[in-house]
């Protein structure tokens, strides 16, 4: 028998062969064994659950067999006889299944899952105390034997055991590693990081000392050292990142078991397993995520009967999603269960004296839902043995906030609930575009980057249209709001005015805009570090990073810049409430006029393009007028009171407006202007497509209800 991986002094466990004591002073080898085995068991869980639901896959069967086989063999070295026996039972059962001498049915799956659980418990015990529990898994083993020999009586459990212990476990040689990977202690990585840090400091000093000289060989060498040090630093940081999928390995089993326990049928879907996070953060959110999933199964998903009664599928679904967005890692736990009733939450919160009745009534629905995060909140039904008392949610919130994250929820009564956990990318690596502005460099997360436009002089000055001090850029016919980065940062005007340099087209939530920068330096993968606490109120920055040459650079907050520059988002609430006047923030509006000179305005954020068509191109359909546009039918709508040059008439000016992926063409007589004003709109009964009337450029102007017009327009094309 060869212990291939345990040959270094200090790592060979001292084995006390006297049975009954079974003490092992493990070293590296034992730790390796435990970690490796737990991972294998997690994988087994997933494979077994998959086979429970669908066809039995031969590769998976082989894998399961190998795990039991290896486990059994390795136990021999460490002297865990009862674990060995349990693993052996599993191996035998798998052997029979492989040969198809017995069928794979629900009883078999259950037994195997219980085996996995039993082995896991033993491994936990070994991890805690260094030895396995005294009791053997006799009943479980007996049950397995019954499954193996359904006709015959029970065979003597000793026979197989005797066979097994003589076998040479060929596969126990060497720990099975994944291809090209190696396991490293986190503490080891931290040490490496510190050393690299020192290296960087020394590099900085060298840099400073040689900066005065002109291109000497010494400087060249220092440059090279500089680059290497930065790359080394990056590399070590990357080594700490782990895909979140590693955390998720346990969840399918958890959901299945919970489902069984609660008498519900639940399936778990996961996406975004490869989203990477720093190991420390993964540790911190492990428990909160587990709790949220338990909660979803226990309280979210209804029983199969209830579900069928309201027209849902009998099986509930919990979806786990992870992705990077807006400089954060988003983790969503969604269930298609019964949702949370905000009025019940309000009641309970008042009952538990967390909030006064009046205050509770004043809360919006979303805020009412958030009451569940308050300490002391627990509805009577939430006290179950599965989720425990309602102390869970506030602990979830605290733990998430401790790593700088936030947790929020949305719910539709009857349809389901979604919990959103957002964690800032502290040690996350993202691809970024490095730009320069007034001599400094800034990073823009590539996920927000749509395109780069080089603004050559002269030629491009035409393409930036300055209207009332608001720069707009026409990009392939589409109008983009444009922001000068230098101006946003409060810097002095650069040379060449704002038309020099480059235009970076960015996506901020559901808005697009162009950012003018002096130069584009490079694309780079950067490690994101959070802003210092004192700087967090600066909304134009979302974090910081260290560039390849060791200098610090700020990461721009694409959404923050948009907001600062007065660009409303399309999701912004409408500026008018029924019966009252409400002031909106300064927004850009496109002013147009109808044939009778009457003024209308629409938020620039809704405007896609300004087009001119031949009057003859307008066609009439049952639902209204349309025009063929870019291969589609664009419904047209005329302004109230507008002149109607009818088919065959001259040109018509059309403002193409869009909302949520749908478009309409508003026929106007004249495009007056673009203004950026704070419009106080009041409802004066202006008409069915009017949101309200505001004073813009000192004239009464009707604000068009673009979403409504679009909906009406859709009727014309017969589309939904």
């Amino acid at each position, binding site marked *: 028998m060869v212990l291939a991986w345990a040959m270094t002094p200090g790592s060979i466990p001292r084995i006390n062969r006297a049975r009954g004591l079974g003490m092992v002073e493990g070293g590296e080898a034992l730790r390796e064994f435990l970690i490796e085995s737990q991972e294998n068991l997690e994988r087994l869980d997933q494979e077994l659950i998959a086979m429970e639901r669908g066809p039995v896959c031969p590769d998976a069967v082989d894998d399961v067999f190998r795990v039991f086989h290896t486990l059994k063999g390795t136990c021999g070295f460490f002297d865990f006889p009862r674990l060995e026996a349990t693993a052996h039972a599993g191996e035998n059962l798998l052997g029979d299944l492989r040969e198809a001498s017995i069928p794979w049915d629900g009883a078999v799956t259950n037994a195997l899952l219980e085996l996995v659980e039993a082995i896991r418990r033993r491994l936990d015990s070994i991890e805690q105390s260094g030895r396995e529990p005294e009791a053997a898994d006799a009943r479980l083993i007996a049950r397995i034997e019954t499954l193996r020999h359904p006709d015959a009586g029970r065979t003597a459990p000793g026979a197989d055991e005797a066979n097994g212990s003589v076998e040479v476990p060929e596969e126990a040689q060497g720990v099975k590693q994944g291809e090209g990977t190696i396991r490293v202690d986190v503490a080891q990585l931290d040490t490496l*990081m*510190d050393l*690299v*840090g*020192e290296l*960087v*400091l020394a590099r*900085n000093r060298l840099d*400073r000392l040689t900066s005065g000289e002109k291109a000497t060989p010494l400087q060249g060498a220092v440059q090279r050292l500089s680059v290497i040090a930065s790359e080394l*630093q990056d590399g070590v*940081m990357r080594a700490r990142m782990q895909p979140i999928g590693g955390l998720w390995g346990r969840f399918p089993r958890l959901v299945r078991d919970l489902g069984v326990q609660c008498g519900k049928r639940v399936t778990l879907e996961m996406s975004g397993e490869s989203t990477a996070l720093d190991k420390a953060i993964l540790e911190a959110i492990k428990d909160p995520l587990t709790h949220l999933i338990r909660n979803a199964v226990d309280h979210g998903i209804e029983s199969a009967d209830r579900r069928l009664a309201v027209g849902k599928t009998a099986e509930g679904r919990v979806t786990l999603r992870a992705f990077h967005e807006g400089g954060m890692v988003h983790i969503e736990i969604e269930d298609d269960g019964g949702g949370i009733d905000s009025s019940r939450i309000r009641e309970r919160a008042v009952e538990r004296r967390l909030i006064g009745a009046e205050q509770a009534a004043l809360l919006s629905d979303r805020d009412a839902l958030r009451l569940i995060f308050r300490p002391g909140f627990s509805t009577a039904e939430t006290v179950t043995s599965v989720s425990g008392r309602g102390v869970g949610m506030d602990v979830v919130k605290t733990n998430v906030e401790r790593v700088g994250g936030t947790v929020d929820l949305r719910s539709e009564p009857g349809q389901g609930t979604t919990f959103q956990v957002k964690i800032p990318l502290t040690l996350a690596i993202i691809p970024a575009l490095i730009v320069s502005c007034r001599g*400094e460099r800034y990073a823009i997360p590539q996920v927000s980057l749509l395109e780069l436009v080089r603004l050559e002089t002269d030629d491009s000055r035409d393409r930036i249209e300055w209207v009332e001090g608001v720069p707009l850029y026409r990009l392939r016919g589409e109008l983009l709001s444009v922001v000068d980065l230098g101006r946003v*940062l*409060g*810097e002095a005007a650069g040379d060449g005015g704002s038309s020099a340099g480059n235009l970076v087209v960015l996506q901020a939530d559901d808005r697009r805009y162009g950012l003018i920068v002096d130069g584009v330096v490079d694309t780079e993968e950067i490690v994101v*570090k959070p802003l*210092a*606490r*004192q*700087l967090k*109120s*600066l909304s*134009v*920055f979302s974090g*910081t*990073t*260290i560039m390849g040459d*060791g*200098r*610090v*650079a*700020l990461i721009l907050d694409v959404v923050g810049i948009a907001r600062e520059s007065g660009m409303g988002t399309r999701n912004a609430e409408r500026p008018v409430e029924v019966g009252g006047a409400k002031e909106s923030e300064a927004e850009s509006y496109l002013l147009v006029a109808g044939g009778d000179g009457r003024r209308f305005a629409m938020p620039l954020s809704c405007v896609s393009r300004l087009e001119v068509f031949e009057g003859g191109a307008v066609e009439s359909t049952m639902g209204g007028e349309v025009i063929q546009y870019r291969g589609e039918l664009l419904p047209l709508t005329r302004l109230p009171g507008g002149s109607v040059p009818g088919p065959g008439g001259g040109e018509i000016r059309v403002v193409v407006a869009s909302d949520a992926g749908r478009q309409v063409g508003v026929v106007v007589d004249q495009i007056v202007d673009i203004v950026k004003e704070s419009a106080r709109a009041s409802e004066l009964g202006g008409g069915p497509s009017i949101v309200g009337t505001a004073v813009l450029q000192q004239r009464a102007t009707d604000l068009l209800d673009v979403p409504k017009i679009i909906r009406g327009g859709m009727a014309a094309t017969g589309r939904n």
Partner: protein
Amino acid sequence: MGTERQYCTFRVGSLSFGVDVLEVQEVIHRQEMTRVPRASTVVRGLTNLRGQIVMAIDLGRRIGLEPRGEEGESINVIIKAGERPVSLVVDEVGDILNLRDEDRESPPDTLPNSVRSLVTGIHQLEERLLLILDASRVVDFDAAA
């Protein structure tokens, strides 16, 4: 008898300050700074300290002194300040002094408020007054300009 503490001392303008040595991580000369636009002038910038990004505060501005030109190389006193170290940019670093708690007096009323709020006490030294800084209060501010 009486507790004795060690203080790291430094000078900003004509004022002398001391910080408990236990709160000081290290002192570094000549760190390259990245400016932070839109932040108040208290924020000197961000700097790379062995792979960690550290915010540097102009101590002079923090205590309300008028902005001085960036004369010469500045010195960074790196304060531990809880989770993340912060750098205090000062003009000059002095000796480490052993001082007794009982010799500490309360700050005089003549000190302007902006300074007094950050100082826990003073020590009368031979040629000067040493103002003992409360490091955690110094780093606690909102940097939006």
